[in-house]
């Protein structure tokens, strides 16, 4: 009985008693969710256009941020370092298309999945070889991002919002909106959607698959760079960030592999659910449940909707 009380009643009592804490937790969950959603967005872009489940998205994020910070530490001015990092992501997209995708086209999904594992290893090794394995600090102010916190007095308490988090939320929304316009309105965007629908049909109307793949991986690279900057500003840039990117996987299955809005909604659900769970229910089992709660939430959703919230309905034929 006491246990049931602790699980079902006590956390809500706490929420009611300290609404400012609840708002703070919700805000942190929201920001975490936005960042998960950004990583998931990179996955979705690549999965839609090339059918590759890109495990390397997480390390691409670290690699992009590391390139930026590494160049900055070597004395390159921040805006130039940003441009150069974008250039590196473009080269990476070219290389991936030429070395990985082109020889492996039409192989089973799991082979391409494994190939991105190989890519992950190469990027980890190369990143450490060139820039060293130590955590690096993101030059937040040099990039023109705000620092510090805004304290709001609401609900009889103090809620503190980090400015960088607000910036992250704004940049994320701009990026999502930009991608939506890019997909719906531009010529290349339409070509991307055609490729996503059917490779062969797209080829037969004269769309170059190879070119599209480079564009998609480059776009995912830019998304990775933006995500890397945001994560790097919250904690330092290091290879440990790659583990965070695994958190984007439950976001993906929650939202569906092929849906951009799904990635956003999934990210928010996972981010908020995780923070609330850790804060209010975590102490019951000794804390640290953040490491698996996201997966449990996603699993619970999946049992009712096996293709995710916004995924394409899976139709199976014999």
């Amino acid at each position, binding site marked *: 009985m006491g246990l049931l009380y602790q699980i079902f009643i006590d956390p809500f009592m706490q929420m009611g008693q300290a609404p400012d804490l609840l708002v703070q937790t919700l805000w942190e969950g929201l920001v975490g969710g936005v960042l998960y959603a950004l990583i998931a967005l990179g996955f979705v872009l690549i999965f839609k256009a090339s059918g590759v489940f890109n495990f390397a998205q997480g390390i691409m994020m670290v690699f992009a941020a590391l390139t930026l910070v590494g160049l900055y530490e070597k004395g390159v001015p921040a805006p130039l370092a940003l441009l150069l990092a974008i250039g590196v992501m473009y080269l990476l997209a070219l290389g991936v298309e030429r070395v*990985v995708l082109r020889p492996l086209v039409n192989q089973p999904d799991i082979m391409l999945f494994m190939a991105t594992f*190989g890519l992950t*290893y190469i990027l980890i090794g190369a990143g*450490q070889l060139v820039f060293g394995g130590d955590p690096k600090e993101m030059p937040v102010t040099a990039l023109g991002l705000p620092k510090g916190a805004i304290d709001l007095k609401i609900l009889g308490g103090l809620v503190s919002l980090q400015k960088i988090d607000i910036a992250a939320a704004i940049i994320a929304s701009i990026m999502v909106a930009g991608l939506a316009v890019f997909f719906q309105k531009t010529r290349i965007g339409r070509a991307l959607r055609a490729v996503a629908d059917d490779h062969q049909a797209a080829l037969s109307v004269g769309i170059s698959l190879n070119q599209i793949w480079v564009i998609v991986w480059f776009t995912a690279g830019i998304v990775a760079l933006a995500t890397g900057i945001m994560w790097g500003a919250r904690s330092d840039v290091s290879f440990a960030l790659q583990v965070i990117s695994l958190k984007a996987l439950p976001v993906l299955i929650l939202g569906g592999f092929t849906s951009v809005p799904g990635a956003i909604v999934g990210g928010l659900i996972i981010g908020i659910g995780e923070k609330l769970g850790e804060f209010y229910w975590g102490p019951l089992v000794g804390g640290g449940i953040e*490491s698996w709660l996201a997966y449990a939430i996603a699993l619970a959703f*999946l049992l009712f909707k096996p293709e995710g919230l916004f995924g394409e309905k899976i139709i199976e034929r014999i």
Partner: protein
Amino acid sequence: MFYREVGQFKTSYAADQAIFPIRQDRIGLALILAVAFIGIPLIGGEFMIASVMIPFLVLALAAIGLNILIGYTGLISLGTGAFMGVGAYACYKLSTLFPQVNIIVWIISSGLVSCAVGVLFGLPSLRIKGFYLAIATLAAQFFLQWCFVRVGWLYNNNPSGAIEVPLHTLFGIPITGATAKPLTRYYVVLTIVVVMTWFASNLVHGRIGRNWMAVRDMDIAAQLMGIRLLPAKLLAFAVSSFYAGVAGALMVFLWLGAAEPEAFNINESFVLLFMVIIGGLGSLIGSFLGAALIHILPIIVRTTPGALGLSIGSATAEHLTYIITGGLILFFLIVEPHGLARLWQIAKQKLRVWPFPY
């Protein structure tokens, strides 16, 4: 010329359905076993046995377990590392609670514990498929790993958080703990791996294995043909986690001697997945080849510069190991997407018709 079935007539159905229908295959297998049981202990040094052969065998056993799940039943799992952990912790717990019972009994029983946990986490597989399932198994990976850290009962509240293996003997000879000789441990591991491989081989070549493969190729079609999906899939999860659990127990008790929760993290699961895919999906020999390649490759990469007289810092060497391993994974996937086992089959076919091209 040497590898041909000409003149080997089958006079019974049993002979016709044998797993190794060609006499040369049986001779080859006997030779491999002879080398493993007699040759390697004779010529191999302590390093060879303790750091190359024992890990190779343990990893190959875990890879067989994963291959049953991915290669034979088509269910992708990223939680093998955690299931190995379940085996290791179960074995530790059982052997410290009842130290008088033979350790081999506990190693096998810990496989059964892992089996039960595997079935539990395999339940969603009926509704979820493909990559969605892969991510669902990550839930098992992270949840179990969290248990290994947070549940003190599992490691007897050892302040270091690690599990340490006590001394156990078999017929009066120490086989686990600090005083056990590598050679003794090698023989125990080898025997268990050989017996379990033989068992797996019979399983996948029989009715159950055929059911699994039907499910892998198309589960709805398999269902229409009268295969019940839930038992087939759960059995695959059960057998797979049993193998992983035994491999985990062997890893801690006969290879490492002690382990921390970190030993069973997600990287372990990924490494095993590499082994299965590079070795060849749906092939037992592929599991061995993959384990050999993935385990021995970094050792070679690490020792080559020293042997060539080049001096590279250990950090640089480690980074290079990453790059080279990644590059080789890509190389093997592009050159032979069906894995090393496929290369082995091509070689066999060529040998069969040699000296003619077809």
